[in-house]
């Protein structure tokens, strides 16, 4: 019996698949099966396009055969230009290891998503690279579009262990410095740090011409705050402690998180950044759709 499409996209189902490559395929196939009038149709990797000549284009790129047939100038180096270089930038700090339900941590969720995206990109022959960071950049795989790149990316992702404190601005600045071509930078982070430097670093990426998708991954508990009674909370990175009556604090907390996300949403809108607020209970299709919409908007 064929599983319902939604089943492929549920974190609790995906969690049961240990192999990351299978997990990635599982997510992508589930996603593609679910698409009907999908934007994916416009991104066939087999299809080549011509583009009208525009002043500034190199004249040597003009396809004279087409000119002969149509008496119009078209440039022919279109295949390379339709490819998009994507970089998966994943926050691996200690806070990303958090899970309330003991199912997918924020990092697991981010990795699953990143793997699916990688798998999707490589199959579209888009080069895909990988960077992980906590308070600085760690692993770094240059973008490739070879099929073997999937294995390399997944291999690195499978070995990632959450640890240490986070320094997102610094890491993003490093990312910006490393990327020479305009790329699609997909950042996976819980953004639990001072927002202002993070925004500056994101702007810096934008100023360099990169397209940025910010996957703001929070745990389900971080969004809904399901705690009750008196709880002593410990911050995993800084080891700060706070004893609090969870029932009394819930409303204020949820409101604070919502305004935190809202501020990021507004900032990203103004900065031309795609902002995807996610939590670990959400299906993966939303994240994949963000990517595809972003890719289409580039052309």
């Amino acid at each position, binding site marked *: 019996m064929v599983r319902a499409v939604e089943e492929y996209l549920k974190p609790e189902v995906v*969690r049961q698949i*240990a*192999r*990351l*490559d*299978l*997990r990635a395929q599982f997510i992508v196939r589930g996603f593609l099966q679910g698409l009907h009038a999908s934007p994916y149709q416009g991104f066939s990797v087999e299809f080549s396009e011509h583009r009208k000549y525009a002043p500034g284009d190199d004249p040597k790129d003009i396809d004279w055969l087409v000119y002969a047939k149509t008496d119009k100038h078209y440039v022919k180096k279109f295949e390379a230009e339709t490819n998009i270089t994507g970089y998966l930038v994943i926050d691996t700090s*200690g*806070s990303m*290891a*958090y*899970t*309330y339900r*003991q*199912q*997918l*941590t924020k*990092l*697991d969720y981010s*990795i699953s998503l990143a793997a699916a995206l990688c798998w999707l990109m490589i199959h579209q022959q888009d080069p895909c690279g990988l960077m992980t960071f906590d308070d600085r950049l760690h692993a770094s795989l240059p973008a490739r579009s070879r099929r073997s790149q*999937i*294995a390399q990316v*997944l*291999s690195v*992702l*499978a*070995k990632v*262990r*959450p640890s240490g404190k986070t320094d997102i601005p610094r890491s993003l600045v490093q990312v910006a410095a490393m990327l020479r071509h305009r790329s699609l930078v997909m950042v996976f982070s*819980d953004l*639990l740090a001072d927002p202002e430097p993070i925004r500056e670093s994101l702007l810096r990426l934008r100023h360099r011409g990169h397209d940025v998708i910010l996957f703001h991954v*929070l*745990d389900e*508990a*971080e969004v809904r705050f*399901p*705690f*009750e*009674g*008196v*709880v*002593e*909370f*410990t*911050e*995993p*990175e800084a080891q*700060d402690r*706070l*004893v*609090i*009556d969870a*029932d*009394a*604090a819930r409303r*204020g*907390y949820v409101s*604070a*998180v919502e305004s*935190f996300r809202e501020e990021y949403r507004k900032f990203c809108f103004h900065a031309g950044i795609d902002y995807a607020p996610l939590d670990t209970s959400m299906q993966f299709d939303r994240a994949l759709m963000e990517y595809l919409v972003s890719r289409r908007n580039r052309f």
Partner: protein
Amino acid sequence: MNLTFLTPMLLGGAALVAVPLILHLIMRRKPVKREFPALRFLRQKAIANRRRLRLNHILLLLLRMAALALLAFALARPTLRGAGWLAEGEGPVAAVFVFDTAPRMLLREANRTRLERAAAMAKVLFAKLPPNSKVAVVDTSGGTAAFAASNAAAAARIDRLAAAPQTLSLPSAIAEGRRLLETAELPRRELYVFTDCSRGAWQGAPAAEAATESSELYVDVSAAAPQNCGIDGIDLAADTIASGTPLSLQVSASREGPDLSRAIAVELAGADGRYARRAVKPVAWKQGRQAAVEFEIAGLEPGVRQGRVLIDGADDLEADDVRYFTVEVGAPARVLVAAPAPADRNGRFVAQAIAPAALRKLNKARFDATLVDVERLDTTAWEGFAAIVLVDPPPLSDRSWDSLGQWVAGGRGLVVWLGPQAVEAARFNSDSGQRVLGGRLVRVWRSPEGGNFLAPMQLDHPMLAAFRRVGDAVPWQDFPVERHWEFQPSAADAAAADGPAVVVAPYRNGLPAVLEHRLGAGTVVTITTPASQAASDPDAWNTLATGFEPWPFVMLANESLLHVIDTADDMNIAAGRPAVLHVDRRTATAFVRTPGGDDVPVAIDQQRGTISVTATQTPGNYLLRSGGEIGGLSKGFSVNLDAAATDIVRLDDEALKGVLGAGHRLARNEADLVRDVNLDRVGAELFGWIILLAAVVMAGDWVLANRFYAPRDDAVGPAAGGHLPLEAGA
């Protein structure tokens, strides 16, 4: 209400409230630990939240302390009681039993009188008395109030209780009981009042006093639906009647219970003391209504006549089924009417008014009037006359005044109708004259035609009692008084021995019209306008005697004379009141025959010429005899129960609250009595209530504690380290 503890030592357990405090301080239960990365969002609200947390902790702490304190409180077995801070539950008490022994307590209900019921309930209380208790019995018959030597003696006193006419009212007996309790040495004091809660028992009782230190319990011995019919009272038209005059009796009788028809009879005592029935009339009562029956008994022989009015047939209370009366039937009182010459003309109005010729012929006149010229007054023998009437007297000599004064002071009467003959006021106002009249003439007062007349404002003077029966119907305005003497009573200190004359009735202009002056044992009545002038006289001062149908004048002439002749012997008295009868000073010894038939010698007050009989507790007819059967003294009096003594109508709850106080305790039956006494002596234990309260507090603690600390189903351990290893796969 006092709060006491049966096991006060256990109150020390309240110190355990310190335990949760100590535990709270040294063993603070740790909250559930959780890792949580998004701590930054919590910090903003942390301060307010911490305050609430602390408040919750304090609330929990207080609840636990309260629970422990309540447990200790409950185990100490607190009890609410009316008295006994100092004594133990079974310590001796000083108890005073106050009984209402009025005759109404003989009302028989369920084959038992109220008094018997009170005694039975008192026995129940006796059985509940702790050992070594002191008991006193006080009743309304008024004996000495003291604590009995032993409980057995007190019980015997209760057994001997008998109904008797009250000498003490119930409130007075209660006050006596309270005074007695104050002298008691025992710290616990109890007062029990046995009452039928009737209107008669609490008549005229002051509002309830403030609570005393002693515990007071009222025991209601009345029944729910008493049935009784009784004679409330008999109204004699006069204590003294002339022979040949019928005796008028007005009997009022009331009924408690359903409608009833009975007969009321009048019986007269014969010479042998036996009663013979003279009249019977039927009476039909409606529920709670009074009935009035009038009798006229004619043919009474001269002398002291005694009788009784009774309701035929038996009922639940016999004491009020009979009332006694005594009247004196005698020859018409002889009155000397002295008027200016010609006396038969000037004195005829008064003489006709007091002894009408028609009645004299029939030998039924109240008075035997003898007319005499005032000039011959001194030479007339006054012996045998009961009173002298001076009609328009001229100024008399001092000797005449002195003689009159002396004669009146000996217990006779004088009526003076002042008129124009007194024109020489200065002569009239001699010292002797003023002594007799109690004042002096000032001037003749003239009033415009028809503008002035007698206007008695209040009819409360005994002389005007007869006018009360006709009320406002007396047409005084039809008998104008154009001239009258202005009479000024002597100053209060001027005639210290006898006092000044007092105004009985004024004219419309406010000046005195009728005055009364007590002179020794006699009385002088002065009327400041004459009754001697003919209607044809152009100088007539008034038309009192000459107006159309002058019955007010006739009444005034008769009543003034009756008033001065009255011997002041009250022959119908209430039980317990002393009877005072005037006798001839020459009487040496006298005996009183009581209703029981006993002859009791009584002493004679030679100085006052009176006999006082104080042993008048028993209702009935008393006969006073001295000397032989013929020619000896024969007087008598009747003793009746006070109406309150037989008034069994129960006070309603509101009225009862007024006399007993809002917080009074009233036991209606033996079960009430035992419970109330136990409640008061042992107290009502609050254990159950406090344990319930403690349970509520503990439940509140449990709910709050679970809310604060209890582990949640979804809290399955620390959240850290939830990362699952992944395999690279491809």
